[in-house]
C-alpha cells in the first residue's frame, strides 16, 4: 500500500562514508536511528530467493526463524542495553534478482521501517543495495556471501557474514600445498563471474614466490552448471591439484566429470559446495575432496554430542519441523541468526549507529554451531568475519567432512591476501 510522502525523514543525496577516523560517518544520517524499534519489538528485514530457480536458499530462512523463535519464546528475547526485545523478521522474496532486492529493501526500509537488514542473500544483491543502506544509514548485517567486497571501507553499513571469505580458502590451500606438495601444479575450474574470479585471482597472487604453478584454467557458465568439456580440457594438463571454484550443481558436476576421467588430482572445492545434497549428488566421486568449513558439519554424527549442535537440532525440529537440520543451509541460517543476536546484545544501545559501530568492533566465539573455540571478530582495519575455520576432507564412507590439521586462524588477514581490486572493485 502507499505511504504518505510526508514522513520521509532520511536524506538520500550523499555519497558513501569515509571509514578512516570515525569508523562510521553519521554526518549524513538525519533519520531516527532507532527506527524499527517499537515498544519491546525490534523489527529486522531480510530478502532472499524464495521462488524461482534459486529457491533452495529459502531454507536459510527456516534456520533463522528457528533461532529467533527460540530466543523469543525461551529466552524472552534479545537484550540490548538492559532492555529485552522480541525479534520480528520481515522477509521478502527477491528471486535472487538484484533489482528485486533493491525494490524489496526499499520497501523494508520505507514501508516496514525495519531497524536493520539481515542476511540478505547474494553478492550482486548486496552490492545493489549497499549505496542505499549507506545513504539511509541502515545496517545491512551479515550479507550472506563470502565475497571480498564486504571489506570495502567505503561501505561501512554493510557487514559480511561468517562464511569464509573466498580468498582465505585459497590461502588455506596454498599453505597446505606448500607444506605437503610444494611444487604441485594446479588446474583451476572457475565460474565465469566475480565469484570465480575471487578464487583464481587470489590463487594466482598467492602462489607468486612459491614453487606452485598454474597448469591451466577453464571457466564455466554458472547458469549452465555443465563442466564436462572444461574438465576434459583440464584433465589433459594432468595437474596435481584441481581447484573447483564452482558453486551449486557445478561442484558435484565437476567432481563427477573428474571421476569419469582417468585424471586423479587432489581436489580442492569451494566452501560454498559443502551442503549435504550437493555432496550426495557427487556420489563416490566426492571422496577425499578438500574444502573449508567455518562451522561444525551438521551431517557428521560425531558432532551430535556437541552441545551447540544438539541445541540446534532440537530447536529446528521444534520450531521448523519442515526443515532438515542436516541441511547445511539451515544450519547456516541458524548460525547467522545467533551471530546477529550476539551482535545486538553487545551493542551499547538500541540504535542503528551503535549497532553498526559494535559490528565494526565485534568479537564472538561459540556462537551457533561455529567451531568450538573459533572466534570471529572485526576491528577498525579488519572488516571480515569468518576468518577462523578448518580445512576439511570429505569422508565418503561416513558422509561427513573430517578436519585436516588444526583450526586455521587468519583473523584480520583477508585483506592482505586479497588482490585490492576484488575488495574495492
Amino acid at each position, binding site marked *: 500500500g502507499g505511504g504518505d510522502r510526508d514522513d*520521509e525523514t532520511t536524506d538520500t*543525496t550523499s555519497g558513501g562514508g569515509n571509514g578512516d577516523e570515525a569508523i562510521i560517518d553519521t554526518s549524513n544520517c538525519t533519520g531516527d536511528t532507532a527506527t524499527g524499534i517499537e515498544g519491546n519489538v525490534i523489527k529486522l528485514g531480510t530478502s532472499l530467493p524464495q*521462488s524461482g530457480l534459486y529457491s533452495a536458499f529459502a531454507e536459510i530462512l527456516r534456520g533463522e526463524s528457528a533461532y529467533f523463535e527460540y530466543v523469543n519464546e525461551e529466552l524472552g528475547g534479545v537484550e540490548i542495553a538492559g532492555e529485552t526485545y522480541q525479534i520480528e523478521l520481515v522477509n521478502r522474496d527477491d528471486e535472487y*534478482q538484484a*533489482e528485486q532486492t*533493491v*525494490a524489496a529493501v*526499499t520497501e523494508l526500509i*520505507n514501508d516496514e521501517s525495519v531497524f536493520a537488514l539481515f542476511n540478505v542473500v547474494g553478492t550482486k544483491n548486496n552490492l545493489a543495495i549497499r549505496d542505499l543502506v549507506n545513504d539511509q544509514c541502515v545496517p545491512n548485517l551479515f550479507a550472506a556471501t563470502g565475497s571480498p567486497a564486504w571489506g570495502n571501507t567505503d561501505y561501512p553499513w554493510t557487514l559480511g557474514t561468517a562464511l569464509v571469505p573466498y580468498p582465505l580458502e585459497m590461502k588455506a590451500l596454498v599453505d597446505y600445498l606448500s607444506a605437503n606438495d610444494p611444487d604441485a601444479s594446479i588446474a583451476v575450474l572457475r565460474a565465469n563471474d566475480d565469484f570465480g574470479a575471487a578464487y583464481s585471482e587470489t590463487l594466482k597472487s598467492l602462489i607468486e614466490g612459491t614453487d606452485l604453478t598454474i597448469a591451466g584454467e577453464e571457466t564455466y557458465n554458472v547458469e549452465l552448471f555443465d563442466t564436462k568439456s572444461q574438465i576434459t580440457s583440464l584433465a589433459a594438463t594432468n595437474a596435481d591439484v584441481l581447484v573447483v571454484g564452482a558453486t551449486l550443481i557445478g561442484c558435484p558436476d565437476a567432481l563427477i566429470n573428474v571421476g569419469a576421467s582417468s585424471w586423479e588430482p587432489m581436489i580442492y572445492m569451494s566452501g560454498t559446495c559443502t551442503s549435504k545434497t550437493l555432496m550426495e549428488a557427487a556420489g563416490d566421486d566426492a571422496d577425499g575432496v578438500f574444502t573449508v568449513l567455518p562451522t561444525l558439519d551438521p551431517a557428521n554424527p560425531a558432532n551430535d554430542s556437541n552441545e551447540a549442535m544438539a541445541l540446534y537440532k532440537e530447536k529446528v525440529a521444534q520450531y521448523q519441523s519442515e526443515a532438515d537440520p542436516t541441511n547445511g543451509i539451515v544450519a547456516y541460517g541458524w548460525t547467522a541468526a545467533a551471530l546477529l543476536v550476539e551482535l545486538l546484545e553487545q551493542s551499547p544501545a538500541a540504535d542503528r549507529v551503535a549497532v553498526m559501530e559494535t559490528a565494526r568492533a565485534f568479537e564472538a566465539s561459540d556462537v551457533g554451531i561455529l567451531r568450538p573455540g573459533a572466534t570471529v571478530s572485526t576491528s577498525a582495519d579488519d572488516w571480515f568475519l569468518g576468518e577462523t575455520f578448518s580445512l576439511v576432507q570429505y569422508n565418503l564412507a561416513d558422509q561427513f567432512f573430517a578436519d585436516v590439521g588444526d583450526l586455521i586462524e587468519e583473523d584480520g588477514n583477508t585483506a592482505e591476501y586479497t588482490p585490492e581490486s576484488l575488495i574495492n*572493485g
Partner: protein
Amino acid sequence: MNTDRFTPRLLMTVVAAVLILAALAYLPQYYGESQTKLYAEAIYIAIAALGLNLLTGYSGQVSIGHGAFYGLGAYGTAILMFDHDWNFFATLPVVAVLTFVVGAAVGFPALRLSGMYLALITLGLATLFPDLVTRFVKGTGGTSLVQPRNRPVPPEWAESFASEPDQWWYYITLAIAVVMLVLLWNLVRGRFGRALLAVRDHEAAATTVGIDAARVKVSAFAISALYAGIAGSCSVLITGLANAGRVEVFQQSIFFLVAVVIGGTATVIGPVVGAFVVVFLDDWAGEVIADKPVLSPAIFGIALILLMYVLPDGLVGGSRRAVAVLRRRFGSRAEPIAPPVPT
C-alpha cells in the same frame, strides 16, 4: 483509421488521455517511494511493450528476446553514466542509436525466419546476452552489476512537485513514455503502420504494390529494439542499476510479450495497459499467498492463462467487444459493429 479531422471518438480519446495523464502525474504525490517505483516500472515496461507491439502486433514477428535490447539500453546508460560520468539524458540518443543498429543487425537475418524459428533466434539472444555481459562488463564488486551514482537530481523549479529524487525520476520516465507513445502513434496510424500490417497479412501482395517488405520488417525490428533500449535506460533511472542474469533477461522478454498480448496486439494503447497489468499482477502474485512464496510464479502463470481465456483479444479488444454489446443492447446508434480494427 480516422481520416476525418474531428469526430466524437477523437474527442473522447483526448479527454480520456488527459484524465489518465493527470492521474499518472498526481500519483507520486500520493504514494510513497516503493509504490511510485512500481508505477514507474510499469511505465518503462510499457515503453518496451509499445515497441515490441510494433514488431509482434503490427509486423507479426514474435520475439521472446527483447529483454536483451532492454539490457543493452540499461547497460549503455549505466556504463556511460558510471564510467564516463555522462548525464542521463545525454545517454538516451546514444542508446537509441546503439539499440536501433543492433536491432537492425539482428532483424536482418531474422527476415528469412518466421514463427517459431524467429522466436527461437530471439530466445537465443536472450540467453546469450547475459553471458556476454558477465564476460565483458566488470562493474561493481567485480560483478556485472553497474550502478551509476549520478542520477539526475530534481531541479529547483520542480521543487513543488518533485522534492524527492524518486518522484523526479518517475516524472522523467513518464515524460519519455508519453513522447515515445506519441511518436509510435503517429507512426502506426499512417502509411508505415499500414505497410507493416499489409506485410504481416500478406507479404507477396504487399510487395506487388511496392512495399519493400524486408526494409519494413527490419525497420520494425530496429524500432522495437530502440524502444526496448530506451525502456532499459529508464530502468536505470528508476532502479539505479543495470543487471542481466539469464532469468532476468528471459523474464523481461516475457513481460514485454505478455504486456502486448494482454493489452491487445496491434493497438496503440493496449501494450501500455498490458504493462500495468503485468507489473501489478506480478506484484500481487508475490504477496497473495504470503507463506508460500514458492508458488508466486504459479499464481502469476495461472492468472495469465485465465486472463487469456477471458480476453483472448486483449484488454483493448475485450473492451471494444463490451462496448459493441452494450451498444447493441441499448441500441443507441445503429452503427454497424465493426470487428477489431487497428487504430
